């Protein structure tokens, strides 16, 4: 059971996306599509014919698989409902960030492969955002890792006591902003448009169609749910099972579901109440949250909690 918990991420991630979309639609006063719509989209895309530019090389064709596989690899390393896992040997959170980087690297390369300006634009902006986000994510991780005495995510989840300490609180807010940026949501990126002025992530996928697009989209949903899971493991691990017992896992699964839905709500509220920032205003937002991360580290040094 504990070894196949990553299946949860693979199969439920489109649902999280569906829930966020539904909530956003409700905020905008629309009924919105069904929460299962992402599943239908993926199924449709897998069956569809692909149109591929003849400028592209093998990088373009391999990238969707690499992105999908690296995200799945990340899912295998994360404790989802139980911290006990035989894969824990690889469950290091710094490794996790670098496994995500594999996908980022190849997605950005694939965007340049077709030789269009849209791809280059998306790729270039994605790189800028990731440069601003990465140090912040690492500082938040350091704060929690130092407090737990390990960079292993399972150990961090087990060590964490239920009450948020001041340093964790600050790190949590910084990390949430990092997630918004990393999943390409408003105010950093707009996931719903293909307008060149706003797009980052969508710009990189513009040349993709059919099953390649499906793999890319699915990987994106998975990454989103994974980042939520990391937040839960780092800051709110309450309820997570420490072993493979059936009853613990059932409780843990329920707790996990509630936490995921809560985070989906937070995301849709943020998206619905904020406006998209101009690209060159992002450094001030992300710089601010970097300051939060530094503060959280300072708090840990000064008061030790």
């Amino acid at each position, binding site marked *: 059971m504990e070894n196949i918990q990553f299946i949860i991420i693979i199969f439920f991630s489109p649902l999280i996306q569906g829930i966020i979309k539904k909530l956003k639609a409700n905020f905008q006063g629309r009924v919105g599509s069904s929460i299962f719509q992402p599943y239908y989209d993926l199924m449709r895309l897998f069956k569809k014919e692909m149109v591929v530019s003849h400028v592209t090389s093998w990088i373009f064709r391999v990238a969707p698989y690499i992105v999908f596989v690296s995200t799945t690899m990340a899912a295998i390393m994360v404790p989802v409902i139980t911290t006990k896992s035989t894969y824990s040997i690889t469950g290091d959170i710094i490794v996790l960030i670098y496994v995500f*980087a594999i996908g980022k690297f190849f997605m950005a390369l694939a965007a340049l492969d077709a030789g269009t300006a849209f791809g280059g634009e998306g790729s270039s902006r994605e790189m800028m955002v990731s440069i601003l986000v990465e140090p912040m994510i690492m500082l938040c991780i350091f704060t929690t890792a130092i407090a737990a005495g390990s960079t292993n995510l399972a150990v961090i989840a087990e060590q964490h006591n239920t009450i948020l300490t001041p340093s964790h609180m600050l790190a949590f807010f910084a990390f949430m902003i990092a997630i918004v940026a990393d999943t390409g949501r408003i105010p950093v990126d707009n996931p719903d448009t293909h307008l060149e002025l706003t797009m980052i992530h969508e710009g990189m996928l513009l040349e993709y169609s059919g099953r390649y697009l499906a793999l890319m989209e699915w990987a994106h949903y998975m990454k989103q749910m994974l980042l939520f899971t990391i937040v839960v493991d780092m800051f709110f691990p309450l309820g997570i099972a420490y072993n493979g017992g059936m009853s613990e896992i059932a409780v843990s699964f329920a707790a996990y579901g509630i936490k995921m839905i809560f985070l989906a709500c937070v995301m849709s509220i943020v998206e619905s109440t904020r406006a998209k920032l101009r690209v060159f205003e992002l450094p001030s937002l992300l710089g601010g949250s970097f300051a939060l991360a530094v503060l959280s580290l300072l708090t840990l040094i000064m008061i030790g909690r």
Partner: protein
Amino acid sequence: MTSMYIYYFGLLLFIAGAIIPLIYPQKMKRFAYIFPTVGACAFAAFGMYLLFDHPLDISAVSITPLLGFVFRGDAISGFFILLISILTFSVSVYSMGYTKNMANKGVMGVLFNTFILSMYAVILSGNVITFLISWETMSIISYLLVTFDREEESASAGLLYAIMTHVGTAFILTAFLLLYKYTGHMDFAGIKEATNDIPAGIKTIVFVFAVIGFGTKAGIVPLHTWLPRAHPAAPSNISSLMSGVMIKTGIYGILRIVVDILGVGPEWWGIAIIVIGAMSAVLGILYALTENDMKRFLAYSSIENIGIILLGIGASMVLASNGLHTLSAIAMTAGLYHTLNHTLFKGLLFLGAGSVVHATHSKNMEEMGGLIKLMPYTAFFFLIGSVSICALPLFNGFVSEWLTFQALLFDFKSASAVAKLIAPMSGAALAFTGAMAIACFVKVFGISFLGMPRSQHAENAKETSTSMLAGMGFLSLFCLLTGIFPGHTIKLFSSSVFLLTGADYSSSGMGILSMREISSSISPLSLFIVMISLFIAAVFLVRIFGGKRKITYGNSWDSGIPSLTSRMQYTATAFTNPIRVTFKKIYLSKRHTKVSYALKPYFAKAIEYRDDITPFFEKYIYQPVTDFIHSLAGKVKHLQSGDLHLYLGYILATLILLLIFWS
């Protein structure tokens, strides 16, 4: 004894490689590279011997009691000998094809072999005199190699290099003289035994001078200015050696003098090294990003990697001065591992850049593009190098960066609050560097190898010769092997780590890297296996559930205009624009736009766009110093009027002054 035979065998081969092309420049040109290929294998075996066995006195020739040549090897030298040998092997193989149509082949062969020999000599020097002579020889030969193509740009780069390296040597010399004055020894072993006699203040001066002196060679910020100009000016096989191993002799010097001879110092030494490392890493990669010259870009990236190496070494020093020797050993492992990795992937990338420059006759990325189809193998090897240097898992850069992160986290265990703050902040700097490296290499690979060819030369590019590919392939293989077998790799140089820190870090298992101290571990081998199986599974599952793949080939999305040309692609300059704007306070960038109109303001005929960055250190530190020296020289030159009578007058005045002040 066997090891001595191996050593002399290797030595003979390099000497033969240096002499033969001089005598028969045309007929025997290949031997200039076949000999060092075999010689590198011999030296690799010799390095292994040093790593796994006792230190070895190779030879000692004494001329006067103070002046003598001593060559000596121990585990630290063994590690660096091994690095030089691995890269020499690949570069020699590569050079067989690369130098085929080169002018002055014979001279190249001589310099190539003597350059490698001088680096071996630096590493194996056992006393101050030998070290300085080898060091100087290495500097002079590399100067000749930088100016090898006799172009104006190379000449000025060479001049800068010669000046900088001699300033560095002056600092090293002073440090050595101080060591001699207070210990009375010229050989390193003697100095090391007598280090307790050195007062703390002098130790600090030696530390500072050694870091400045060797740091100049290693290319730390702000002493880096020569590096991005000299490395690209040399022929690419030499650039590969210079960035791959020559700058590592600076690291070797810091390790030898500071860590090995001076021993554990106060905590601020380590913190200073960490800060220098973080600064070099961040600024090196920031400047690398804006560079569109492929080789200069790689040179800047070397500065970044030297910074990462120093982060590991600095972390180790901080931990050592806190008495945490086991953790210090892990941090030192991180530093040495990255030294090894950087040799492998930067060597590989420079060879790849050399092939690309060879094929497209341009160093400018804006004139490349689409090379992945014309040079598929070169592109593949370059991609492996890029993935390794970006520290993506499964390749070697990742292992050493992970270790460096852990090393910096350990520093939180040290007593002082400064170390507690500096170390995680440097970790954040390392994360920033990592993200920047990804942006940089996406740009380099994406702009030069993907998309459509941007120039006629790029369109006509051809795959390079087999020997060049073989040289790159060998290094690529090493990048993968050291990436998935970290346990083995660490075992290889654990004796050097032991010598430097007095503690051992040997990890359990072959593909696993575990740390009991923080109950964390990584296993690149199982990552590798799992990811390969996932990849195969994903391909099959998509085939099964999605049915047969249906592809229509068409044009890229062109927004409805008739056809896309290669000039409409995103350029390297455009790619970096958001980052340049974000960090404009650091770049001090100036944007120049010039529009000429056919009919103002609606019909623009031509738009000229230029974005310059101000090289801060050159402009605000080096330029004033140069100006000052120039003005001083201008004032002094009046003394030299060329008038014989005046000179006789000087001599008379000197004599009188001497007579007055003699007693």
